Structures are given as structure tokens and as C-alpha cells.
């Protein structure tokens, strides 16, 4: 093996530009795969952290009829706050959220919205709810920047809101945008308006009711509250996990094409090598190498492209990857409106597993691709190979 490595290294370095071209293509494959997976993993971490900070907390209790994907369920999905939650609410380890639908009329246009009532003094999620602690003739509400952009609303704007309470009575009042907050989580922003929960309960004739509770730190989960179901943090992240999984699968197609191109270059080089170096192969056999050794030598030669690519990739790749980790990757304009939690800048995260997996994957595939054409050597007649006769 050591001999094969030594000879393969000599042959590769001796082959000059052809080797370095292949090595560069392979190293580019390494770096791109590691970088892209790093971006997706970084996005995954950021998205989960942002969702935890802004939306889910450490989990949620849902009223048994509550289904965030079914707007028609909101009318039925609120209930009295269980007494067993009162202490936790007082301690600030959970906070109730009441959800209803309403209509606003910004600049005279009709806009259906989701109205979410929350305690302005809550500290569980990062929403700047305390901004709603103002005395105003109008109802103080806050919205996210996406909502502000879509409805052409800004801080200080006043618009009419119309709603239907639990008894079916319609009512309307002016609301004032006291805060436009900036966050990466569309689930707390797009099409939504946040309002102090007490005001919403009053508006909807739903005194002391809630649709769900957001759970903070140090809360002991109670799984047996009648009419309420606990949804864990992991459950609430299922959507993100699925999306990341899909992104990775989508990315795999890209890697497959990239690896395929690199492997095509290696395969082509190997086929060309075996075709052009028949005399050399014959000479190796004449000098006492077994066919197996020659096949091994050519396989190692091909596989060594992947090893050299690690070295070359490390030279320019490590500074690039570290630089990206430091400054982040600015997401293209428009990704903000994709409806998924995504920061303006994604900071890639490179795990040891990711790097090891990528390196091993490329080495294994390169070795297989190198071995396939090299098998032809074992069928060559050495007497013809010595003369360089095409076989």
C-alpha cells in the first residue's frame, strides 16, 4: 500500500496540470458542499432559535380545538384559563394568547387579519409587547414589518378595525399602530396584529379566555389539564425540520450534479490514463508488479486526487469558510417574503460530522470511480501493453 501511495503520488505530481485541474475541481466540490450544508445548518439553528425566541417559547398549551392552519377553528378554539395555570401566569413562566379574526381598513382597503391578544408585560418571547403599555384613545396595537409593508402602515397610523365577538355581534373601533417590530419569524408577523389580551378579551366578550399559552423557562409541564394539550418545542419545530430536510434533499441534487461533474473529470482522466499509459502498464508488469498491484496503483492514483483536493481545498477553503462564518451570508432580496423564518444574514455552522462526511463521501466515490476503469488493466495482455498496442 505504501508503495502504491508513493508511486501514485509521483505519477500524479509528474502529470502536472491535468492533475491540478482535477484536484481543483474536486476541492471546489468539497468547499461548496461544506459551505452550502453549513449555510443550511446555520439557517436551521438560527430559524429554530428565532422561532423559540419570538413564537414558540419552550412549548405551548393549545386549546383542544385550536389548529393554527385552520382559520375556521379560531371561533371555537378558546376557553377559560384553567385555574391550575394561574400561578404560572403570575410567575411569568407561561403567558396566555387569545386568537380571533378581524378586519382592518388601512387607507380604505379591506384586510382580513389575525388578531392576537397577549399580555404586554410578558417576558417569555421577544415580542416588544411592552410598547403596547400606552394610554391612548385608540386601541394600541403592534404589527411586524411584513404586515406594515403589505398594509402600508407605519408607527403612529390609525386605522379602523372591525370584529365579531363570541355572541356574533359586530363592532368596530380605531386602532393605533404603536410599534412596528422587526423579526425574522413570519408566523408572528404576516397578516397579524398584536393587541393587549385584556382589551381583546373585552372586545370579544371572552373574559379570562385564551386560545393557547406560550411556555417559558422553569415551567413544570402539566399534561393533564382538561381541554388543553401540551405541544412540545420539538413538535412545534417539526415544520422547520421538514423544511430543512426538504432543503437538504433539494441541495443534494445540486451536490449530486457537482460530484458527478468532478467524478466525470476523474473517470475521464482514468480512462485516458489507462488508454495512453498502456506501455507504462506493460512495463510495470514486466518489472514485476502484479496486475492487482497495477490496478491498485491506478485506483490509488485516482483516489489520491481526493486527498490532494483536501490539501488544496484547505489552503483556500478554510480561510473562505472562516470568513463566511464571521461575516455571514447575506440572503438575497425577497427571501424575507418566503414565509419561513430566515434572517437577513445566515451564519454558516460547520460541524465536524459534516466535514468528515463530505470528505469521506468524496474519497469513497472518487475511489470507486477510479477503480472502475482500472479494472480493465487486469484483462490486458502484458505483451501487447509493453508495445503500447491499444487493447
Amino acid at each position, binding site marked *: 500500500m505504501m508503495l502504491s501511495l508513493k508511486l501514485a503520488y509521483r505519477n500524479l505530481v509528474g502529470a502536472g496540470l491535468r492533475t491540478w485541474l482535477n484536484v481543483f475541481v474536486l476541492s471546489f466540490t468539497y468547499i461548496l458542499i461544506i459551505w452550502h450544508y453549513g449555510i443550511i445548518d446555520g439557517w436551521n439553528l438560527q430559524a429554530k432559535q428565532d422561532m423559540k425566541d419570538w413564537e414558540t417559547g419552550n412549548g405551548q398549551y393549545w386549546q383542544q380545538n385550536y389548529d393554527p392552519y385552520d382559520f375556521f377553528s379560531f371561533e371555537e378554539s378558546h376557553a377559560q384559563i384553567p385555574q391550575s395555570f394561574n400561578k404560572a401566569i403570575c410567575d411569568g413562566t407561561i403567558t396566555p394568547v387569545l386568537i380571533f379574526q378581524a378586519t382592518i381598513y388601512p387607507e380604505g382597503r379591506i384586510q382580513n387579519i389575525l388578531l392576537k391578544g397577549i399580555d404586554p408585560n410578558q417576558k417569555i418571547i421577544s415580542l416588544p409587547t411592552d410598547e403596547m403599555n400606552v394610554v391612548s384613545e385608540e386601541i394600541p396595537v403592534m404589527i411586524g414589518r411584513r404586515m406594515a409593508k403589505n398594509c402600508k402602515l407605519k408607527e403612529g397610523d390609525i386605522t379602523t378595525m372591525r370584529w365579531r365577538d363570541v355572541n356574533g355581534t359586530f363592532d368596530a373601533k380605531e386602532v393605533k399602530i404603536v410599534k412596528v417590530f422587526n423579526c425574522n419569524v413570519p408566523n408572528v408577523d404576516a397578516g397579524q396584529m398584536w393587541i393587549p389580551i385584556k382589551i381583546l378579551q373585552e372586545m370579544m366578550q371572552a373574559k379570562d379566555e385564551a386560545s393557547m399559552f406560550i411556555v417559558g423557562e422553569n415551567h413544570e409541564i402539566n399534561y393533564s389539564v382538561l381541554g388543553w394539550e401540551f405541544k412540545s418545542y420539538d413538535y412545534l419545530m417539526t415544520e422547520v425540520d421538514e423544511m430543512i430536510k426538504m432543503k437538504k434533499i433539494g441541495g443534494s441534487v445540486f451536490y449530486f450534479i457537482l460530484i458527478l461533474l468532478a467524478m466525470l473529470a476523474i473517470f475521464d482522466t482514468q480512462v485516458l490514463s489507462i488508454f495512453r499509459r498502456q506501455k507504462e502498464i506493460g512495463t510495470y508488469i*514486466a*518489472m514485476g508488479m502484479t496486475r492487482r498491484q497495477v490496478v491498485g496503483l491506478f485506483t490509488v492514483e485516482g483516489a489520491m486526487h481526493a486527498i490532494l483536493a483536501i490539501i488544496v481545498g484547505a489552503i483556500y477553503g478554510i480561510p473562505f469558510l472562516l470568513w463566511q462564518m464571521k461575516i455571514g451570508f447575506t440572503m438575497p432580496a425577497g427571501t424575507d417574503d418566503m414565509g419561513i423564518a430566515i434572517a437577513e444574514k445566515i451564519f454558516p455552522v460547520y460541524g465536524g460530522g459534516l466535514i468528515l462526511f463530505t470528505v469521506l463521501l468524496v474519497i469513497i466515490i472518487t475511489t470507486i470511480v477510479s477503480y472502475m476503469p482500472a479494472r480493465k488493466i487486469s484483462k490486458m495482455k502484458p505483451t501487447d501493453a509493453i508495445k503500447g498496442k491499444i487493447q
Partner: protein
Amino acid sequence: MENSEIISIKGLVKRFPIGKGYFTALNGIDLSFDKGQFAGVVGPSGSGKTTLLNIIGSLDSPSEGVANVLGQDVNKLSTKKAAILRRKHMGFIFQTYNLLPVYTVFENIEFPLLLLKMSNSERKKAVMDALDWVGISDKVKSRPAQLSGGECQRVAIARAMVKKPALVLADEPTANLDSENSYNILQTMVNLNKELQTTFIFATHDDKVIKYLKRKILLEDGKVKSDNIITN
């Protein structure tokens, strides 16, 4: 010179398939070679010289008959055992030199020693000795593309001789060389034959080589026409 037999060939036949039939390249060859001989198989193109050398070199196997080389029946050797036989005991010199193009002169000559797993220092000494024998010590770092034909063939000789094999097989070693280079090369081989007692077997139809031979085997249409020991 010792008179021990190192190659014994009896009733050797070699046929190559051509279309639906066969071409008989060697037809009933009986020969033997002793240690230290400087012999040549001569004859016109297509007479079977190279085929005979290939069988002796265990690169090919006979269709019929027995070829016993250095105590091993070529017909019964596995490809691995044949490779080991060549690796340990044989050197090859080819018409087109067959040097490894990306290796330097030193590395080309060193190659057979790497296969023998010699130590670094032993290898270096052996290569330097071989370079001295063929007189190209100044070209140690050159690559084959930077050498003349004569120099390439010297490297090939050094490569064949560096492990001091029992047998060197040379197939038309001077065919690509001018007269002066041919004589220099042949003189080198004669000296090595005397000095190291290596058996040389040539396949040639070059008169320049034939002049140096101590034994001349004439092959025609796959048969031995004459076999003469030359004493001068």
C-alpha cells in the same frame, strides 16, 4: 564461467488465434541457456524472437511444451508468481526504452528496487552504482523527455541491471539507436555480463548486436534453424 543451466525449453509451441484459425509463432523449440551466457535469438521479422523472449520472461505462456526458467515452469506459474519471478530475477530492456515518463532517471532506475522493498540507503547506493555502470551519473535528475535515445537506453539498462538479476532479456535494444550509441550500449552490456555474470538474451536482427554475441540462435518460421556458440 559456470556451466549451470538456468533456462530449459522443450517442445515449445506457441499459437496465436487469428480469425477462426491459428498462427503458429513458435513450433517445437528445444533450447537451454546457461548462467552468464551472452546469447541472441536472431532472425527476420515474424520469426518468433519476441514471442520466445516473452515466454522466457513469463509474460506469456506456451501453447504446448515446457519452458523452465530459473527452476520454475512458466506454464504452471500463476500471474502473481510470474510477477514475483520477474521482480526478483529478471530485467527487461525494450526497443522503445519504456521508461516511466514522469519519473526522473534516478526514480526510473530505483523503481525495481522499490518493488523489492529495499531500504532507502541500499536503494540509493544501488542506483548510484547502476548509473556509474552506464555512465550517466550526471543525468540523475533528468526526465526521459530530456534525454537522447542513447541516454534513454542506458537508463533502461541501468534499470534492468540495478537489482543484479540472474537474467536480462533485451528485445531489439539497439533498433532505435545510431551506430555509436549502439556500440557504447553493447559494450556496457558486455562489461556487465562479465562483471556480474548476468545472463543476457537478445532478440535482434541488428548486425551490430550480432557481432557481440557469444551464442547465436537463428530462428526462422518459429523453428530453430541453427544454434552456434561463437568463440573468438
